[in-house]
């Protein structure tokens, strides 16, 4: 009887362990995650409009994303530009990624961390 309980606890342990390993293994470094978010049509899709170093088939609706640290010495301003660009320019075509829930705050932060290295 006891064995039964122990066995199921043991199994759970294995499964949780496996799942953890899988997530750890599946989680690429932050820079890669950011690049992925920026090219994924269902996520940032920044490449639809911006040229970004290393990105293929970029659109040309927005300015190339370069020298970002000089343009945005203030990290919060860069975050705000992505969270809701309509605050600065109500007529912009850049989507309000944070306000409309297209990207989570965590995802925007990943992108910001990556952009300031450009």
């Amino acid at each position, binding site marked *: 009887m006891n064995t039964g309980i122990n066995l199921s606890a043991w199994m759970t342990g294995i499964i949780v362990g496996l799942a953890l390993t899988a997530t750890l293994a599946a989680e690429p470094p932050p820079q890669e995650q950011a690049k992925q978010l920026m090219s994924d049509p269902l996520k940032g899709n920044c*490449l*639809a409009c911006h040229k970004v170093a290393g990105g293929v*088939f*970029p659109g040309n*609706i927005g300015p190339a994303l370069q020298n970002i640290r000089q343009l945005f010495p203030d990290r919060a301003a860069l975050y705000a530009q992505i969270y809701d660009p309509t605050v600065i320019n*109500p*007529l912009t*075509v850049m*989507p309000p990624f944070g306000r409309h*829930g297209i990207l989570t705050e965590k995802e925007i932060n990943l992108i910001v961390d990556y952009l300031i290295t450009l």
Partner: protein
Amino acid sequence: MRKTILLLLTFWIAPTVFASPAEDLAQFQGLFHNAFPNIPNAEFANGAYALDQEGRENWKAIEEFPPYDPNVDNGKKIFEKPFANGKSLADCFPNRGIGIRQTFPRFDAASGQVQTMEVVINQCRTENNEKPYEELSKGNIADVVAYLAFTSRGKPMAVTIPDDPRALAAYEKGKHFFYTKRGQLNFACADCHVNNAGKKIRSETLSPALGHGVGFPTYRSAWGFLGTLHHRYRGCNEQVRAKPFAYQSEEYRDLEYFEAYMNTGIPVSGPSARK
């Protein structure tokens, strides 16, 4: 509060809100003529290919063996075939349907609504005890419109807004739809097809709104079939994650009315092929 401000701004970018349709028309076409001074007016009948030289070569090659030829043949057959009561679709159109595409959509005083060719076709069938077409994205109804467009190729668009408050209201609704940002991605039609016409969104060149619809129905390789204008409208709404409206809904008929009126003078080019 923020919502009100945004709404106001959306109204504000529309070419002068209280302008007459004729004033809107001059301003709208003027924008494109200023932005693309070297493109003759008739070229706007070719959508993105008026501006995208690279895509244009491929398109020309496709148009040499038009993928929509079988649709035009089928449309002609259906159009001429008598109903069980002996009448036919031709009886429901001015000039028996030939060379009149440029006058559609039209305002119908009896119903007080905008009528597209698709609406007239289905109404004609119902009135003559035939079943209306249920498939409104493609198929027989698209083929009939393709045939009617084919007989009108080269004729300059000449949609009118009669002196009737309901016609003007329909036009204003279509115009408002065109300039309103919608969807999770927050885009108006004008954001892509006026402000960024000719630019690339990823690898697709954005067509100018001037000329929108004169090439429809269109055989799009991405669809793999000849589709109606409202199928395109739905696709454009969906890609910004906005709720698409029903085929032949009042919203899309009014939108088509506005776009068609803005095309005044642009020649009919439909049916057409697209990437």
